[in-house]
């Protein structure tokens, strides 16, 4: 009995430490975003204020960065869906020569340091006059979403049993109606996971965006570089919270439809 309590205590302590480790920095950020100053050796912050928030929302450079991020990421996700979902369907439902090579190839593009890839892209961009343009940033961010938007939906499409589609055909539905009402609908949880992952990949992308976009186009993550150097720490805290907000909102919205195993299942070759 005693041993059991000890074990339970150990587990609870471990969970508490883990929570502190993960949530600690976020709590620290959240507190700093609302304090006028909080430095060693003061135990408490010396005042509560909203001035950093108004600073962020009134600063035109920061506002532009927020606007750019909220404009570019949805476009990237939409384009990624248009390009990748048909490929994912093909990879999930059809068996053709080179299918596995193709899928593993997509993986391999993500297994090298991206900075090399971006440098090569930059030379290409100069030739195509894409340097410093929104289009250029969109294409660079698109690269990071492809792996999510192909692998996870491909597994989701592959997991739809053939005879569920046959049953719908038997019930009088045309091939397109079957795809719309059965196949797509059943693959939707996987596609939702892919959308969330792609959005976050695009929203958080800084390396390529900085290389291609600066100094014309700044998004929230690239703006962070100058923020950390040029503003008080509290402004960076406000900005970090804003950066985390879409992820939290998206995960909250999608939680109902996302099962735990969906992501893990996405990365299997069948």
């Amino acid at each position: 009995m005693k041993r059991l309590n000890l074990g339970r205590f150990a587990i609870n302590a471990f969970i508490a430490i883990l929570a502190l480790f993960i949530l600690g920095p976020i709590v620290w950020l959240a507190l700093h975003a609302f304090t006028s100053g909080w430095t060693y050796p003061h135990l408490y912050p010396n005042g509560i204020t909203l001035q950093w928030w108004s600073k962020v929302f009134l600063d035109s450079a920061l506002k532009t960065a927020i606007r750019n991020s909220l404009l570019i990421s949805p476009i990237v996700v939409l384009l990624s869906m248009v390009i990748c979902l048909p490929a994912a369907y093909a990879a999930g439902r059809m068996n053709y020569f080179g299918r596995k090579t193709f899928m593993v190839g997509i993986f391999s593009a993500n297994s090298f340091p991206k900075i090399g890839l971006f440098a090569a892209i930059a030379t290409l961009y100069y030739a195509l006059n894409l340097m410093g343009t929104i289009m250029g940033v969109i294409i660079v961010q698109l690269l990071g979403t492809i792996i999510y938007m192909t692998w996870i939906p491909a597994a989701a499409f592959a997991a739809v049993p053939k005879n569920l589609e046959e049953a719908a055909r038997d019930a009088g539905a045309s091939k397109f109606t079957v795809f719309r009402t059965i196949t797509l609908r059943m693959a939707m949880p996987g596609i939702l996971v892919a959308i969330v992952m792609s959005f976050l990949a695009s929203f958080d992308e800084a390396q390529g965006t900085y290389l291609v976009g600066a100094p014309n186009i700044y998004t929230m993550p690239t703006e962070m570089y100058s923020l950390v150097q040029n503003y008080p720490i509290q402004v960076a805290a406000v900005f970090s919270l804003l950066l985390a907000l879409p992820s939290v909102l998206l995960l909250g919205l999608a939680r109902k439809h996302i099962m735990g195993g969906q992501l893990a299942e996405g990365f299997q070759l069948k």
Partner: protein
Amino acid sequence: MSRESENMGLELRGLKKVLGGRVIIDDLHLVVEQGEMISLLGPSGCGKTTTLRMIAGFLQADEGQIVLAGKDVTNLGPDMRPSAMVFQNYALWPHMSAAKNVAYPLKIKGLSKIEINEKVEAALELVNLLHHKDSRPGQISGGEQQRVALARALVQEPDILLLDEPLSNLDAKLREKVREDIRELQRRLGITTVIVTHDQEEALSISDRVAVMNSGRIEQFSTPHDLYRYPATEYVASFIGSLNKFEGDFIDGQVIPGPGLVGIRPEDVVVSSHYFEGSREGTVQLVIPRGHFYEVVIARAEGIFRVFMNEGIPQTGDRVHVGVKKILRYINGNLVH
């Protein structure tokens, strides 16, 4: 040969199907009357499922014609055929409730909401599942899922109902009840029905007629009674029920060498402790209790006889007189009278 037909049931004319370079179905002919319930019976790989999938339209026939309710449907897709299928694993859509599953075909047809509701309720009522209309397939038992699948098929008011191994996923106790329920429903609605099964007991007990299939062809298509008492081929005789088989001919109560084959059903063997006309002596080797009857294994000069007996059961080692009431003679695999 006319392309259309007077028969409002099902006609298969010279069907052929090659899959992966192997001939699965070869020159298959079958005529099913309207309102009749028939089974396609055979071991796995005999082509029964392929035949059903061709009738449903999931597979295109390489040769031949399929005529459903008087119309040639050979070149129509599954969505355009007046057939409805109940799949072996039911193939219910897991993201829809039972009622939504049943409503799907009606929605595709473009019926009004009121009409759909009425028909869905009636169909679920028919299979006694109205209380589960808002349940998802994952929340109900296998037997209930099957009834939803049946309701989804019946609500389409098809000219022909196709059932793929309908009882194979149910436990033994439920199987008999569902078998009777399906039969009763089919009789009441008078719907032409084709069942695919590998279970001879199931086929014999549920069908008006049974088509025994073997390597892509129909060996015999007749009533359960004729199939058992007058099996047209040696294959059917061995496949259906038990059979004592001897090479040669049977004359004067004993097997004599010859070119053919003799089959004797266990219940056609007569056993007595005394001599009777045509009997020969044998020794009881084994007595196996089978519930409501006994299986008795008797060794005679020409080989082993298996006998089904109800009374006067001998003991192991007894000397008994064995005679035969009825024999089936086959030459080159075909029944001779």
